[in-house]
């Protein structure tokens, strides 16, 4: 049953996303590849990260709604979004009642000293996956080094990274790289 699977998967993801937003990217990548890899490609996920960056709202809700829609239409989107929201909803309701105890708990603090760096390491892994789909879209091989696409992607990435570090707004970066992609496409770079 796809609806139950969507709900449970995103409930797990919601319950394990510490530090917000991108922390769920590694989980989305691995869960989607393992469960629905035949329908949603790794490239589709990267494309959708771009859509999430350029639309309002929390990253987690955007991703959940997208995967839910692709797999199970409107009700699928409802199930996955409910799933990703519910864990934090329940936990915050509990914490709101006994905030002081929670804040001063040495167990919570101890767990966080382990979780924060773990999330950074995992996001690094997720970024590596994205880098593979950008630079080696047809799988890892040295063949791409002889085509122009690899170098154009690399150049585009470098320029956008400089812009991102200069705090240019993500939407501007998405639009600029879309424009560059279209120009490169009509010059025959991507084929």
């Amino acid at each position: 049953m796809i609806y139950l699977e969507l709900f449970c998967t995103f409930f797990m993801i919601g319950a394990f996303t510490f530090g917000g937003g991108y922390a769920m990217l590694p989980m989305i990548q691995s869960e989607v590849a393992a469960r629905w890899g035949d329908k949603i490609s790794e490239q589709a996920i990267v494309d959708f990260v771009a859509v999430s960056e350029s639309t309002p709202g929390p990253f987690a809700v955007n991703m959940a709604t997208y995967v839910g829609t692709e797999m199970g239409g409107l009700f699928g989107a409802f199930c996955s979004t409910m799933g990703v929201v519910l864990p934090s909803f329940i936990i915050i309701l509990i914490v709101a009642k006994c905030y002081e105890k929670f804040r001063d708990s040495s167990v919570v603090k101890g767990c966080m000293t382990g979780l924060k760096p773990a999330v950074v390491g995992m996001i690094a892994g997720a970024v590596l996956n994205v880098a593979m789909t950008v630079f080696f879209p047809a799988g890892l091989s040295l063949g791409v080094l002889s085509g122009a696409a690899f170098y154009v992607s690399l150049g585009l990435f470098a320029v956008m990274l400089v812009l991102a570090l200069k705090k240019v707004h993500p939407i501007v970066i998405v639009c600029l790289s879309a424009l560059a992609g279209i120009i490169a496409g009509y010059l025959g770079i991507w084929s």
Partner: protein
Amino acid sequence: MKFRELWKVFITFFKIGAFTFGGGYAMIPLIQKETVETHHWISDEDILEIVAIAESTPGPIAINAATFVGYRTCGVWGSVCATLGVVLPSFILIYAISFVLRQFQSLKAVRYAFYGIRAGVLALLCKALWNMFKKNPKNWVSYIIMAGAFLLTAILDVSVFPVLIGCAVFGLITAKYMARRTQA
């Protein structure tokens, strides 16, 4: 009376969900403006509290904040309205967009655009990663956990969930050990 208050909570968080791009901490200034300055539901100190809680509980920061503020203003129903409000804009928008995307994916220009966009997204992700790395404590425990989590999930393909649990336990043990050593 109570119903009107709930409606206000819903509309306020609907606005917050509809107008913050990028999610996460990008939402905090607008939440502060709407809930502290405009509606006086909570104080500036509560905002700091919310950020601290959001950092140490799972889930998207926007959901955490909405649930917390909603609870403070109108109890459990307040948190239901606030959370629904903050989720609904992106839910509707993304549902619509995923149809539009499917329609336009066959267009050459759109496919070309996404080749470029993927490189741009990679840049955005690298920047986000760098920011998170800078915020982390700079000590050997945190570097070891970082490297370990990266190796296990990215290279050895271990599932994310057990690695997170393992890292939490490891952090807990080292924190207790450090505390005991500084006491002694």
